[in-house]
């Protein structure tokens, strides 16, 4: 099972750039890029901050890909 996310789609839907979202949750733009590309798995704290900022439930933002 791989941990995936809808961060890119939801971020774009909310009109945030990677830089803006990163600044708002206290991480670098590179970290946002890495999460969106599934290269980096964020901590629970960062995942919750992202979900809160994007006004979405954490389980809608992050999910397990069972394939």
């Amino acid at each position, binding site marked *: 099972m791989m941990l995936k996310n809808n961060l890119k789609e939801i971020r774009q839907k909310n009109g945030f750039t990677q830089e803006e979202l990163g600044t708002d949750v*206290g991480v670098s733009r590179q970290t946002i890029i890495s999460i969106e590309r599934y290269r980096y798995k964020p901590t629970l704290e960062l995942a919750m901050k992202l979900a809160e900022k994007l006004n979405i439930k954490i389980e809608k933002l992050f999910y397990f890909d069972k394939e």
Partner: protein
Amino acid sequence: MTLSKKEISILVEVIYSIVFTLIFLPYFYENQEKTLILMDGVIEKIFQIIISTVIYFSIAYSVLEVIYKKKETVDERDDMINSKSYKLGYLLYEFSLFIFIGYVCSKFQNKELLNLTGNQELYNSFELTDGGIVFFVLVLLAFTSIIKSLYQFYLYRTV
């Protein structure tokens, strides 16, 4: 390929380790059979190392600050990359020290065996001076530092 400030800082460290290896290690290699007190100009060499290190990093980081004016955020991803790379460096250093201890033990064991054969010339050549230990530790530090920094750079590019 565009490099971030953090990646360039790592490359600055790698370059320093390589330059240090090329410039200062030959001196310790040539004097590895002497004790530290008998080494020619060891105090001057240590001062040279300290001063050149301070000058190198001051200039390198000042230039970096001028080029990259924007302050970069240090976050959990940096912590993860740093902990992984420092762990590798630590393991390498520890492993190399074990090898060195094994080498020293086998050397003294061989020396005792030579003593039994009565070959005095070979017996006397089996010396391990503090100059040799300093050389080995410096090689080890340079090696682990280069590997650690390259791994850190690799993680920044791939994670």
